[in-house]
């Protein structure tokens, strides 16, 4: 197992390598220069030129790539053009926020989706099942940004239960409760689509499991339905669901950009969007790489969990 994990981690390297080359190429193929070279019309061309020279933007792209790679291998992602800060610092400032949001959403999605999926499967074609089905499809079909605004209007403005946005009350000391109040709506919005998808997935996985021979065996042993479903069925049913989590990560990182904007959540999603528009190359590259690493790690964790849950998988 350990050696499997090590191998997988090593395997990440070429993937990350491929991603870095791809994104570098795309980034430089993009029309438009880094905003820093564009923003102020009054900067004389010589100053702009000097700026470009200083940032090494006049070198051939492969040279720039190699330089970037060299720096990254030393742990240096460079300095943001637009924000003038070390990129690593920028990301480390915000990454925890994004991770918190994503983790909460995943958690929320899981604790809602799995029970609903199971109930839906065990009562196939019942009213409950139809209800869950329609509900989850609604979740799948609702645009994030719209849902976000709606929830703010209802829960923050009308009811005043939650703050409009942000991650904590400014000036207040840190408290779990305060953090939760800020977290709940964005996490919910980010989780909605995945929650729905996961419910569907759990349902079909459980349906599959429930028709398996070993479930019949469990029944023949005289166990009550609860025990049959939860002890013998669920663990098997969850195995394929686990892989979903790995696949959900990249879409979550993407979806977080919108949610972060709407809820003013200081995460890297919003930062990436800004960086893209400003052609802030070091930031774009760094976030892409962080996102990719996150995804790959997510998949790895999913695979490992898979192996943990399913004794048939042996590495």
């Amino acid at each position, binding site marked *: 197992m350990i050696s499997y994990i090590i191998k997988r981690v090593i395997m990440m390297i070429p993937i990350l390598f491929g991603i870095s080359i791809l994104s570098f190429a795309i980034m430089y193929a993009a*029309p438009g220069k880094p905003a820093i070279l564009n923003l102020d019309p009054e*900067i004389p061309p010589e100053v702009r030129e000097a700026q470009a020279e200083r940032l090494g933007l006049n070198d051939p792209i492969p040279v720039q790539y190699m330089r970037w790679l060299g720096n990254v291998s030393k742990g240096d992602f460079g300095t943001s053009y637009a924000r003038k800060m070390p990129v690593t610092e920028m990301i480390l400032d915000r990454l925890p926020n994004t991770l918190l949001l994503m983790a909460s959403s995943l958690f929320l999605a899981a604790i809602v989706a799995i029970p609903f999926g199971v109930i839906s499967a065990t009562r196939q074609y019942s009213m409950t099942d139809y209800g869950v089905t329609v509900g989850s499809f609604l979740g799948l079909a609702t645009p994030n940004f719209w849902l976000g605004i709606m929830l703010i209007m209802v829960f923050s403005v009308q009811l005043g239960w939650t703050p*409009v946005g942000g991650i904590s009350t400014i000036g207040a000391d840190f408290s779990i409760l305060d953090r939760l109040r800020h977290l709940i709506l964005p996490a919910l919005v980010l989780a909605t689509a995945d929650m729905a998808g996961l419910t569907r997935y759990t349902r079909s996985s459980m349906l599959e499991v429930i028709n398996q021979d070993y479930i019949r065996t469990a029944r023949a042993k005289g166990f009550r339905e609860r025990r049959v479903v939860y002890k013998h069925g669920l663990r098997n049913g969850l195995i394929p669901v686990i892989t979903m989590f790995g696949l959900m990560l990249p879409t979550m990182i993407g979806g977080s950009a919108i949610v972060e904007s709407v809820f003013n959540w200081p995460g890297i999603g919003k930062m990436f969007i800004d960086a893209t528009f400003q052609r802030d190359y070091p930031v774009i590259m760094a976030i892409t790489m962080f996102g990719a690493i996150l995804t790959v790690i997510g998949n790895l964790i999913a695979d490992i969990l898979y192996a943990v849950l399913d004794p048939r998988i042996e590495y």
Partner: protein
Amino acid sequence: ACGGNDAPAEGPAEEPTEEGTEEEATGPQAGGTVVLGTSGEPVTFNPLYSQDSASADVIDLIHASLLESNEELDMIPMLATDLPDISEDGLTYTLTLNEGVLFHDGEELTAEDVKFTYDIFKNADYTGPRAGDFTELESVEVVDTYTVQFNLSEVDASFTTRLGYGILPQHILEDVPVADLEEHMDYNRNNPIGAGPFVFENYVDGQYIELSAFDDYFDGRPNLDKVTFRVFADTNAELLAFETGEIDWMILPATELATAETYDHARISSTLALRYDYIGWNNDRAPFDDVRVRQALTMAIDRQLIVDSIMDGRGEVAHAPASPLSWAYPDSVTEFEYDPEGAKALLEEAGWTPGADGILEKDGEKFSFEILSNDGNVIRRDIGVIVQQMLGEIGIEANPRQMEWGAFLEQINPPNYDFDAVVLAWGLALDPDPTAIWHSREIEAGLNNISYRNDTVDELAAGNKKIVDQDERAAVIGEIYEILAEEQPYTYLYYPEQHILLSNRVEGFTHHPRVNMYKVNEWYVTD
């Protein structure tokens, strides 16, 4: 490049004046916090390098400058005791500083600091955006602790407006090489020390910037204890935060006026902004190289209707490339009223006649072109489609196209200049010098990206900065404006209003057309 979104930023300038504040009967009270909504992340708190309004807003609170502009856009003294004493030849500016001005760390601000600050602009290693402002500045001399003298190589009538940059503390920054100053985060971001009314406390990326009152501010301690900027990424969220009382102050988009008007706990302050919006025609390209065509295009666009529909009527139709707020704005210029029939006639005169499909034609060429705007800007996008319809009514086919900002700039600027028409805006500097935009030498690499050429304008523009007398200079600039109004290289659309939504608990606010954080030291809260 050009500022499509905002003005070429100027340094802040603040000084207490007694006009324009609406005083309550109870008078100002000390204490309290105001939370401001802001839509961008500040980049730097160093006034020599800031380019964005989010940074400028904070800088205006932290730093103090020699002079500042008042809400009438006149320069008034701030750290200086008076406006500069200008020598006969117009080449020497002498200023006297208030005594006992302290930086936040308790050191006194002296003429040495002023020299230190302005010397940076002249330093060859300076990487910031303002070097161009000081081409005429030859040297800065410290006459005595409180007197400083600026020596110019040429007369520059606009030089006074350059004296509004925050003064940096020499004792903190003297050892930092100028080349490294732009990225010197220890100061620029983490611990900016100025002599302004508020002390920088804390900046949490993506969330807020906290400032507190500077007890030893030379003009007296501000009324407020604390000012907090809260960063918003989305206007809807910002407005809702205002609605729930989480913030007290925000810039209100015209589209949300109706909502804001329903708020009992707030008021809206509106004033013309120092900017104008326009459609720029590529003067190098047919058919826009024909002045009659440009005039006809302007006549075919119902600008009042545009103002009414997308600005909710809050703005004025523009007729010249200047702001009515400016002292250089002429009493009258040629105005083209909405007159589609007249436009058609003018076009016919220029050889454009309706073809079989109703679209104007000349020599077999259809009158069809692209109106470019940047995406993400809803107002300009809407202008694009409105203009499309208006021009369509007189037989011109205009196709709006949106481009991502970076790509857009690359396409319309040197060396590409690849566009027919662009919807853009200019935020104006305090000094009305039109050279940078309209002089034909600016076509090559400057801001004259529509390739406007007029010898008279070139000539007048070249001389205007040498004219020290403001009225005289206004006349010359007025002449330029008249030509530009007549020739319509742009179709000037409108002067927009800026709206500020302010909680009723905040008093003492003065609305400055250009500076958001104006005289915040006079603000106070009533709860």
